[in-house]
């Protein structure tokens, strides 16, 4: 490979090479020192654990993805309008902001079993758990963006005779999208966390459930396979949010956002 080809693709080549070396060293160290699988499973152990699940791995992944995506979408549907409301209307903001901050302060892992008792063991409880953790960053980001709208842009709307609603829809919300996407990136990542927590306490399927059930049988390889898949899902969703942003909201992609 020529030097110029390397420099052109270095952003791709370097991390892949580092990853391959990391996995290689991990495997070599595991085999060489015969590290027991319950202390540190080797990459091969993890692969075996995953393949022992077979297709079940993917059907469980589908379950978890459903929880993540539904919970994330609901968080957007609640978080974005709420973010607009608290930033536009001072009364609403003063009235409900403390409640929202309190809701967000509840440790999700602590409240999850309680929610299962209240709402039962179906999807509802899982979605509530995901929403509790994911709507807050989305709401705060939206509110921050709405409030950050430059005064001259707002003046432009006022001089033309725009109502508050028109101003929000045509000026403040489009402007805030840069911030909203910041919130969505965080939101989608914590949605994965929320979905796994929900499956820990209440599920008979899903990757979170598999992690619990396989560790109780000391199948660390299988557990690690699920954990790895969860990380892949998380990265994939994070990148998807970025892709949606670049495709449909190109003006929000400045040098500061990547």
């Amino acid at each position: 490979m020529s030097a110029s080809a390397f420099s052109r693709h270095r952003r791709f080549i370097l991390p892949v090479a580092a990853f391959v070396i990391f996995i290689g060293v991990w495997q070599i160290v595991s085999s060489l020192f015969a590290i027991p699988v319950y202390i540190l499973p080797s990459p091969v152990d993890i692969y075996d654990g995953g393949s022992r699940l077979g297709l079940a791995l993917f059907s469980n992944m589908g379950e978890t993805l459903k929880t993540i995506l539904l919970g994330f979408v609901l968080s957007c549907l609640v978080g974005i309008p709420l973010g607009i409301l608290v930033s536009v209307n001072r009364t609403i903001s003063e009235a409900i902001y403390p409640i929202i901050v309190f809701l967000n302060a509840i440790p999700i892992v602590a409240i999850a079993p309680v929610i299962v008792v209240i709402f039962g063991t179906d999807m509802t409880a899982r979605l509530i758990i995901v929403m509790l953790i994911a709507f807050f960053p989305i709401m705060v980001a939206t509110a921050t963006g709405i409030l950050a709208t430059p005064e001259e842009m707002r003046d432009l709307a006022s001089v033309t005779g725009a109502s508050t609603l028109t101003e929000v829809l045509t000026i403040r919300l489009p402007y805030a999208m840069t911030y909203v996407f910041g919130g969505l990136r965080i939101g989608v990542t914590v949605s994965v966390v929320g979905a796994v927590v929900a499956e820990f306490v209440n599920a008979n399927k899903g990757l979170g459930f598999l992690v619990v059930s396989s560790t109780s049988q000391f199948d660390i390889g299988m557990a690690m396979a699920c954990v790895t898949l969860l990380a892949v899902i998380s990265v994939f969703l994070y990148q998807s949010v970025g892709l949606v942003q670049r495709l449909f909201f190109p003006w929000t992609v400045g040098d500061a956002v990547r």
Partner: protein
Amino acid sequence: MATAEMMLASASKATEAPVLIDIDGVSVHFESQDGTRVTALSRLDLQIRAGEILSLVGPSGCGKSTTLRLIAGLQAPSEGVLSIHGGAKRRGFSEVAIVFQKPTLLPWLNVLKNVLYPVRVLNRRITAADKARAIELLALVGLSEAATKMPKELSGGMQQRVAICRSLILDPKILLMDEPFGALDALTREDLQLDLLRIHAETKKTILLVTHSISEAVLLSDRVAVMSARPGRMRDLMEIDIDTPRTHQTASEPKFSAYAQRIRDQIFEPRAGR
């Protein structure tokens, strides 16, 4: 005083045009952050005539921009009455448009949609006639090729031209300009000044221009209002009796520098010497 005679002579000529904006004893007070009352504008009396270009010049804090915001309906008078075209000022209507120092284009809309933004705000469907008018306006400032470009693809001067087109789309009677050329480089500024004179000649809009540049005020204006700071008040109102159409050669006329000098004297003269 020779200048006073000059003013009188030209005033009699220009009073034929009806008064469009009547600012009658208007004061504006602000509550500053530590709770003290700041007077941004003190008992301003100003009659703006239909079809004229009137410039407001003065040091920072003299209430130039506040005056503009008053007329735009972005600021309510604390005292006094502001009336436009005989009627009371309504908040936001298509007879007033504003151009800011920054172009303030919406980065998510292309040039054409930016120009059409006021039409959209008025909840009107954008018709083919609206589009044709927008394109006509863009052509007026030499930007017909840029209609489908995004704002960030344009230079600062081009963006400001688009902003001027946007301000004209609803065919307002009054055009308010808050240091519209202040952020541009000198050459672009001269270009846009001539654009503005041309637009004024073609449309006969009433234009109220806030500027820091004395020569810009003399070049562009039918009248110049000199304001002083803390509290903001009117110091002098002079008729600029220089033939139209004006170009940048106008600036080398002796009359031009005499006006400029007089404005400068008014701004820097101690208040007691009034």
